[in-house]
């Protein structure tokens, strides 16, 4: 991806700082947040960077609920907007993540997972918010959940998160963990043109023809910014194609089905994984976040010991990359799912597995990393 003649800028960044680089590369001009460990560096970095941009806005709000409201408002007004938080703050976002899903408002939420429920282990890693990311907001709604396992990937996946949000008019959650967010690594800073950047489709028709939630082949309606002449109604109530509240069963069904379909039709685009030595593997580790790094070493050591081990790193957590996982479940005699929770992604793997192969889990909830040797023991 580099041109040989041009010297690229490198930097030694935290995962959290790489998120900011990714967001700015993706066109983010609005951040609203509330301080919380271990995500605060994202907020502090945004506070320095955004006011230096012509239209950049950074807001420290009174709580996470308000942060999410401001992000939704900014997105409705046409901005690419995000917030970042961690465990307890993530719970406070859920009400309005549901509103964003219902109103199909593009935005990005980064949540850096720490250990434990409640205040838990604020400075230790955990992966306990995986199912909350999928099902935290009430009611049936589609949502996209992504993950990253190292600093360059924090940058890349933040760009992907914004692209998905804009393409599919959906809230997108990027789930990091404390270790990934606080690891400092050398990365190449992006130059304009490195990434393909998507922006939401705006209506091409005149305002009087525009229906904000009209059915279409793609299922993603175009979205004008507030104030551009398309005066429409945005509501968290179930609504008809014109955006007005409805409780007619046929209109409600059509709305919900379209919201799911706009995601379901594009699984091939959305479901991202990284495969390491997986082609001839008969033992496979499925991991994400910081655990994937331990798994990478474990698989390498297992290979050295003569085991046909492989690794599947989940970059998309939801919609769960079934097509990638199922193929490997068919080919392997053993699948091991290590994670820093009591079994939140292994639940998805087992759901897909349906008896195809043996699925074992490694669960650690004491605020410490899963070590390569812990994984190695299970796969050799």
């Amino acid at each position: 991806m580099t041109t040989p003649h041009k010297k690229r800028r490198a930097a030694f960044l935290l995962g959290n700082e790489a998120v900011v680089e990714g967001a700015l590369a993706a066109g983010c001009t609005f951040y609203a947040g509330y301080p919380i460990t271990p995500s605060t560096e994202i907020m502090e970095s945004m506070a320095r960077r955004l006011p230096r941009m012509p239209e950049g806005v950074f807001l420290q709000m009174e709580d996470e609920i308000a942060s999410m409201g401001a992000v939704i408002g900014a997105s409705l007004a046409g901005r690419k907007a995000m917030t970042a938080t961690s465990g307890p703050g993530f719970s406070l976002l859920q009400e309005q993540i549901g509103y964003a899903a219902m109103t199909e408002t593009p935005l990005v939420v980064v949540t850096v997972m720490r250990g434990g429920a409640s205040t838990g282990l604020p400075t230790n890693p955990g992966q306990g918010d995986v199912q909350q990311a999928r099902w935290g907001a009430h009611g049936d709604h589609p949502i996209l959940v992504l993950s990253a396992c190292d600093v360059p990937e924090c940058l890349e996946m933040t760009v992907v998160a914004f692209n998905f949000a804009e393409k599919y008019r959906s809230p997108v959650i990027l789930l990091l963990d404390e270790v990934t967010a606080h690891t400092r690594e050398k990365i190449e800073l992006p130059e304009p043109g490195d990434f393909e950047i998507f922006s939401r489709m705006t209506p091409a028709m005149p305002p009087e023809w525009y229906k904000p939630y009209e059915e279409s082949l793609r299922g993603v309606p175009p979205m004008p910014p507030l104030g551009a002449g398309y005066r429409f109604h945005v509501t968290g109530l179930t609504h008809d194609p014109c955006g007005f509240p409805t409780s007619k069963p046929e209109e409600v069904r059509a709305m919900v089905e379209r919201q799911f379909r706009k995601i379901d039709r594009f699984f091939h685009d959305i479901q991202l994984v990284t495969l390491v030595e997986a082609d001839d593997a008969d033992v496979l580790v499925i991991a994400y976040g910081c655990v994937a790094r331990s798994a990478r070493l474990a698989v390498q050591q297992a290979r050295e010991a003569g085991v046909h081990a492989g690794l599947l790193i989940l970059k998309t957590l939801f919609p769960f990359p079934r097509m990638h996982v199922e193929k490997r479940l068919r080919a392997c005699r053993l699948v091991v799912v290590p994670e820093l929770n009591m079994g939140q992604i292994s639940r998805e793997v087992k759901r897909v597995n349906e008896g195809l192969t043996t699925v074992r889990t490694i669960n650690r909830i004491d605020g410490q990393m899963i070590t390569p040797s812990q994984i190695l023991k299970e796969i050799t």
Partner: protein
Amino acid sequence: MAEVTQLIHQYLRHNKKFPLVFCPGCGHGIVLGALVRSVHALMLSKDEVVLVAGIGCSGRIAAYVDFNTVHATHGRALTLATGIKMANPALTVITVMGDGDALSIGGNHLIHAARRNIGVTALILNNFIYGMTGGQCSPTTPPGAYSHTCPRGQLESAFDIVELTKAAGANSVSRGTVFHVKALDRLLTTALARPGFNVVEALTPCFTQYGRGNGFKNVVEMFHWLKEAAVPRDAYAALEDPSGRIPIGTFVDRGLPGLETRYAAMRQELREQRGGGA
């Protein structure tokens, strides 16, 4: 009448299913009228007005007016409005909230919007009760008043919206009633034209959920009560016994620049420091 009809055609959504959801005798329609007349008086274009409403009876106002309308989550209208105004300061952003919406679930957002002095006009429809959920007490239900959740009379004291938002730093704060319609129009028109965070409290009767349970025989009695109880601010200050009376008018008007203006100035300053917009 022809003028009213013209305003209706110009500002209400003809493709929205009428009649309004409000009960007979509800004052919300009068506030809706005041809102439309104020926007018209200021000659704002419908495209530049964003109306953000919360949840409750007042929240339903948003669907009927032909502006950019956002029917937000309960209590959060001001948070969305803050994002919208900061993202596009050229827009005229108005929030419509009820008393439960603005002061109970949204109380934190209200005081912080006032402290921040964000360029938004907050229209608060105070009917002393949770109407849409069927008549529960709100933070403005007067002590001793009855509701389904205080059947023995309200034991807690009530928030004074004017004093609260004034203390929190709102740029301008005023109170009117739906009986004093001309005054309400004037208060709202003035607030919309001012910079920063402006609060307009509109007292509006809810006979269905509040009046019936609190000794009012009909809606007309409630309007009589508003007529009698409301006293202009200065006359109120001169009253020997102000009990049972409610001051109306404008209580503070600081005219300070809104957050979006101060933010833009900071950005400009940064640009100049860095030498001409690099």
